[in-house]
């Protein structure tokens, strides 16, 4: 059945989502996603980059910061749901918008599955009997209790998100504060009570990483920063997005970098970081923060349960932000006819995109089942988890790559939209009579992410097959849908972006940006009218 017809602007900018997310809420959506990664990444990066671990995090942090600044510019200029998919749609057209959307959708559904599994792994610290509750089905060793916990956890997330952003935003805000305080206590206590600067120097000189080790370590560390784009996904529900999003993005970049660098430097001053068994994280790559906390005098007695609790909490809210991001992304894609309009339906009672929340959480449930029923050891070490992690890396780097290209393209195609925040380091160019600010740092970011993307393709055997396979499969469904709707499969649906942009800014009450946009368009029209 064909979708109902819409105006030439479609439903661009007509938001049925409530603007309920405050400055702290916006920050927490990003922190919920990115903040969890250090719990997973620190150990594996330390085992790869050895004595150069802090430098690996620093190198990764630089690329991460550029991605963050890129998103800060685009999300504050185009404060609508969809994030990277919307930016690609504006800059590169429908097809690339869909490719970016499908890559990010892969990320968000895996985010829900993977992080809920890991969260309940942490919570099971308090339920030691859970480890023994398994069943053998053929060659598969299924942790049925853990599986049920995970499925229940995903259903709780669905319920909260269907109830509305206010409910889940409050949930995020509360748990996020606990997580930040807990992490800060570990860092401060570690540096104050046990950190040895001599050991940092000793690790650096005695266990230097080779170029290959460092490249591997820094690529793993880059992947550990995935999730910052969640801020842009809730842009359409953020109050005064043009003002708030640049602040929360920069705040998130700085605070996550602060935590990542602090934890890595702390680790280098507490443990030997040699190869193999000489590495303090050998055998503890799965719980590196808890391992650090256990070794801090005075607080060490309570550190293990505290870290398990914090780890579980922060990873669970990361899964929650995956639900939000997936639902907002698909809501946006359906608005622009990249997905059927069926997904565009918003609940009258709660003003939330109920269908997308339910459907894509369902996809996450399927991914979870695959993870638990795939032959292997535990749910955190089997092949399916490895597959999910690989896909996570592939989806993120593919999405970021397209977003950087979109940033550069939009500087040329749409210089009139006011950007409350510009990525630093711009070079003025005259393009078709208009002065364009060419983003030099954007090009550096593009190169940095491209290197990471190649590293993922080269070093992740499952990801390089399953990742592109997902995008191709989604692409085929996209072509089929567009054909049935009599829409151009590879071309663009005509849209009045200017009217849409004005409406978005009007709805967001961003009058400063709106008036600047109207003035820029009037100036452009005046120049065009004056031309012979």
């Amino acid at each position, binding site marked *: 059945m064909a979708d109902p017809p819409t105006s030439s602007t479609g439903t661009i900018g007509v938001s049925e989502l409530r603007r309920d997310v405050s400055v702290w809420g916006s*920050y927490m959506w990003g922190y919920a996603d990115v903040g969890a990664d250090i719990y997973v990444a620190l150990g594996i990066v330390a085992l790869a980059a050895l004595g150069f671990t802090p430098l690996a995090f620093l190198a990764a942090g630089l690329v991460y910061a550029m991605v963050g600044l890129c998103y800060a510019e685009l999300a504050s200029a185009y404060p609508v749901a969809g994030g990277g998919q919307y930016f690609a749609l504006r800059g590169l057209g429908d097809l690339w918008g869909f490719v970016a959307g499908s890559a990010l959708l892969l990320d968000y559904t895996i985010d829900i599955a993977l992080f809920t599994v890991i969260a309940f792994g942490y919570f099971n610290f308090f339920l030691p009997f859970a480890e023994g509750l398994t069943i053998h089905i053929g060659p598969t060793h299924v942790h049925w209790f853990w599986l049920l916990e995970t499925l229940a956890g995903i259903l709780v997330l669905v319920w909260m998100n269907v109830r509305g952003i206010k409910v889940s935003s409050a949930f995020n805000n509360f748990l996020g504060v606990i997580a*930040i305080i807990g992490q800060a206590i570990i860092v401060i206590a570690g540096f104050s009570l046990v950190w040895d600067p001599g050991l940092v120097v000793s690790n650096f000189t005695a266990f230097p990483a080779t170029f290959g080790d460092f490249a591997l370590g820094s690529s793993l560390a880059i992947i550990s920063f995935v999730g910052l784009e969640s801020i842009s996904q809730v842009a359409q529900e953020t109050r005064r997005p043009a003002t708030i999003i640049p602040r929360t993005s920069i705040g998130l970049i700085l605070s996550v970098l602060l935590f990542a660098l602090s934890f890595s430097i702390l680790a280098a001053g507490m443990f030997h970081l040699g190869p193999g068994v000489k590495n303090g994280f050998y055998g503890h790559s799965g719980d590196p923060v808890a391992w650090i906390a256990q070794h801090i005098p005075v607080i060490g007695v309570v550190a293990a349960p505290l870290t398990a609790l914090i780890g579980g909490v922060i990873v669970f809210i990361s899964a929650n932000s995956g639900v939000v991001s997936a639902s907002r992304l698909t809501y946006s894609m359906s608005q622009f006819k990249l997905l059927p309009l069926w997904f565009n339906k918003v609940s009258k009672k709660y003003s939330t995109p109920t269908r997308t929340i339910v459907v894509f959480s369902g996809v996450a449930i399927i991914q979870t089942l695959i993870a638990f029923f795939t032959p292997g050891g535990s749910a955190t070490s089997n092949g399916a988890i490895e597959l999910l992690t690989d896909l996570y890396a592939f989806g993120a780097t593919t999405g970021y790559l397209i977003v950087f290209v979109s940033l550069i393209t939009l500087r040329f195609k749409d210089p009139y939209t006011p950007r409350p925040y510009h990525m630093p380091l711009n070079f003025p160019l005259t393009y078709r009579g208009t002065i364009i600010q060419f983003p030099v740092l954007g090009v550096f970011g593009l190169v940095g992410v491209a290197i990471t993307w190649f590293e993922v393709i080269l070093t992740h055997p499952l990801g390089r097959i399953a990742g592109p396979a997902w995008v191709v499969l989604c692409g085929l469904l996209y072509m089929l849908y567009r054909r049935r709707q009599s829409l151009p499969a590879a071309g663009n649906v005509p849209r009045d972006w200017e009217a849409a942009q004005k409406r978005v800014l009007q709805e967001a009450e961003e009058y400063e940006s709106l008036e600047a946009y109207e003035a820029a368009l009037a100036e452009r029209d005046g120049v065009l009218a004056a031309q012979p």
Partner: protein
Amino acid sequence: MSLALSPVGLTIAVGFAAGLAGTLGWMLRVPPPAPRGATSTLRSVEAIRKVLVPILDLGASVRAVELAARLNQGHKAEMLIVYVHEIPLQAPLVMPEKDPRIQRALAAAAFIATQHAIEPRTKVNVARQAGHRIVEIAREEAVDLIVMGISHQNRPNESPLGRVAEHVVRNAPCEVVVDRVPRQKVALIPTEVI
């Protein structure tokens, strides 16, 4: 692990806490929203790129240069100072040669502008009626704003603005700011002292 206090470690811990608190504190201090219409008003004033200050005498007119310079602070608009020498119908319409009164007025006006880091363009024009010439200059130069200073004294049956300013306000193609200097201040401004 045993307790090991390190001054460097304590410093990093304090730096970490201060950095985190500072980052979050900065982020949470969101500036107030701009009301609808406020920013377009700001932008319309910022958009002024050329200001004309007509000089008719050494008193209130020169004071207008100071006002125009202060209005222009930080906006880098070009300032054009024109001495309009009104010549009666009975006399030939020729440029007076080195009139000390004109030289003095322009020197004073230019000095005031340079005090505000503005390098003005100055010129002298002759006209039968100053108001008409000022409007013509505004059109020729595509001026965005005219700032005029007028003294308090009026001739009988003249409008409160006076003959010249009245014509400029009615006919100028751009914004006009007229500063009518009050009686008390007129006494403080040198007018005819050469």
